[in-house]
């Protein structure tokens, strides 16, 4: 099961992902990020504090947007990953391509710093 909630704080768009992201539920994540990009959001944070498990399909979603973020000059930060989920990102090498931080504050700071 997956639950995605979106909130906007000033010009920061936060997508909170809860539960398991598998092959079936990854399409919702894909849509949420895609929507944010098409609406021209420049600062997108992904809240992974409640993310239990992510399959290769879910990782594929993040991977597929890396180029788009670079092209549109958007900032994209993940935060609150559990140790296990972080390990999955790390093994794949996705941590070298995405900005991953520990806490929400850190993430907010990261996007405001770089303005």
């Amino acid at each position, binding site marked *: 099961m997956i639950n995605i909630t979106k909130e906007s704080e000033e010009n920061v768009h936060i997508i909170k992902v809860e539960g398991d992201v598998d*092959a079936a539920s*990854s399409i919702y994540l*894909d849509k949420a990020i895609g929507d944010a990009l098409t609406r021209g959001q420049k600062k997108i944070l992904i809240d992974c504090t409640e993310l239990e498990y992510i399959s*290769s*399909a879910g*990782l*594929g*979603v993040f*991977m*597929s947007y*890396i*180029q788009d973020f670079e092209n549109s000059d958007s900032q994209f930060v993940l935060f609150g990953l559990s140790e*296990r989920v972080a390990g999955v990102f790390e*093994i*794949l*090498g*996705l941590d*070298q*391509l995405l900005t991953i931080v520990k806490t929400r504050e850190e993430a907010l700071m990261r996007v405001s710093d770089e303005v």
Partner: protein
Amino acid sequence: MNNFLKPVTSSLPDIRSLGSHLNWIVLLLINFVIIISFRNDIITPEVRVWAPHLSISLVLIALVFYSRLQIKAVDRPSFLPLLIRLCSLTGLGILAILFLESLVYLFSSHIRLFSNPLVATAIYTLEILAGGVVLSTLLVGFKRLMLFEKTRLLVVSWRLFEYGLVTTTILSLFNIQFNTFFYNLIFIALTGLGVLLSVNLKWVGYLDFRQKLQALGLMLVQLLCLLFFTWFLYFYSSDTQLLYYAEDNMLLLVLLSFSLFCTGLSVLVIFFNLPTSSVFEKKLEDLNGIKQLQQSLRKKQSEEDLYQLLLENALKATDAQYGWIWVKHHQGGEKIVQSVELPRLSVNALLSNFTNTRVKDGLMAGRIPGRRRAFHLSPVQHPLYKSALVIPLRAQDSLSGYLTLLKNVPSGFNKDAIGIARLYAEQTCLSIENLQLLDEAIRLERYQEELSIARRVKESLLPREICCNTDCGLFVCSESADDVGGDYYDAYRLDSSRVALVVADVSGHGTSAAFTMSQLKGVFHSLVPQGLGCRDFLVQANSALSRGLGRTTFVTLVYGVLDCTSKTFTFVRAGHCPVLHYNREKNRVEAYHGKGMGLGLLRNSAYQEHIEEQTICYGEGDALLLYTDGIIECRNGAGEEYGQERLTASFEKYAGQKGSSAEVVCTLLMEELHAYAGTKELQDDFTTLVLKFS
């Protein structure tokens, strides 16, 4: 008359009917012979009395048999044609009598021959026979009509009646005269039985209003004809010229009385059934409606057509003036189905006239709370429509819409109307449910078929045999989940001392994973023979795959080269699970993480900055384990993952066992994994490749 009796359907002369033709013609001749013999004194007076009756009876019986061959059993649609046939035959018979009578009337004063009793009797006999033909045909015709719905009692009583009729022929031998005690007794008994039989007029109910009117006319004509024949018999009973009187023939009289009763009763029954025929027609229409709905399922009509059919039938069955169906589609979205024959009115405007606010609000919102099966609303505040019927439609236990019907009288829907409308609604829902289930089954079937193709493709991509150096044993265990994953392994001999190995995992499942795997196999076999270093291999593979992989697809793998001269395993890890090395000397397992990135993650030249080549030097008794993430992500009943730690510990335990081969280590690991997962089926592909050095 013979021509008339011939069946229209068969033009071939039927031998049996030919036989019966002969039969009654011969009997007719005998009849005449007997009449002529009255003149002579060959025949004794006793014989004179019974012989004509016997022969007439025999002729009548022969006629009955003949009619039975001519008139076949009937069913509902052929009632009216049969009635027309019977009536016209009766008319023809009476016309024949009238014709003969007019001949006698015209010529009796001029030609002396007609005043001869013998000639008069002959003409009388001909007339009686014409009547006999009519009566015997009517007997068979009514029998067919009454027996179209057979019951045992009815069949038995008919047989009894027929035996009785035959018996009267024998009675005529005993010279029983008309209006004597015995004659009356037998006559009343047989006529009574005939009356009892003639009450069975169920066929009348199956005629519709038009047909009933026609049948009434036909029966009235027939009744008049029969009454005329009765009067004719009565008239001649006082003629002293005649040598015998037909009313002494009991068979003829019984047939006449039976025909009279049947026709008279039919007239009455048809007449009194006229006002109720619309009820019966309505019920038939209702039944036809259900039949139509059921057939439409077999024809595999669309949902839209089914709703349209339901609406038309419900409008007809309840006599409602207006109606519509509000449909909620299971994919989302809603639609209003209105009859094509009625003007399209605004449903919301009509709804606003409902006085029952709960139902009104429910219909507007598309959700009436509760599980009631029908709502009869009266009154409705509308200039035209005074009452409404709302029936929820439920398919697969969830609401799929509402049928709403409007009528121009208050409390316009009685219990029957509600019942039939509900029946239609349920039938339609059932049809729609079946339609949906069928669609689902087809989709599932197609998916299964795709999966089985993908599985076959995948199996054909994995190598049958795998080569290795002489200083080590190699064993692979690979198991697939039902839903095809994308684990791949292969080996390639570079030269006498070097072997290239790969263990890979393609992201995603199903058919797409199988296709990605085939790309990977192509890339592996085209790059490896070029003798590239591990790092270059990965860069080239990334570049090749990046052009072919889907947007969200990537591949993780470990590619390495085993060299038995330098006793090294040089490898790169492309985002794959770390390689585990069991060191015999230290009796410890070491995991080689190193820097690495999945293929397809970074689809440009920057990729090479994210990978690192590593080398493991192995000694005797050492072991290596290459595996896919299905192993560490395997969950037990409690949802807990097997994990890296458990795998490391188990590998250390099994690889450290003295003399254990690669096969033993690999098998033990898989067994442990299955024990951990329990009875649950595999969620992912499992692949373990074990190398054991000697």
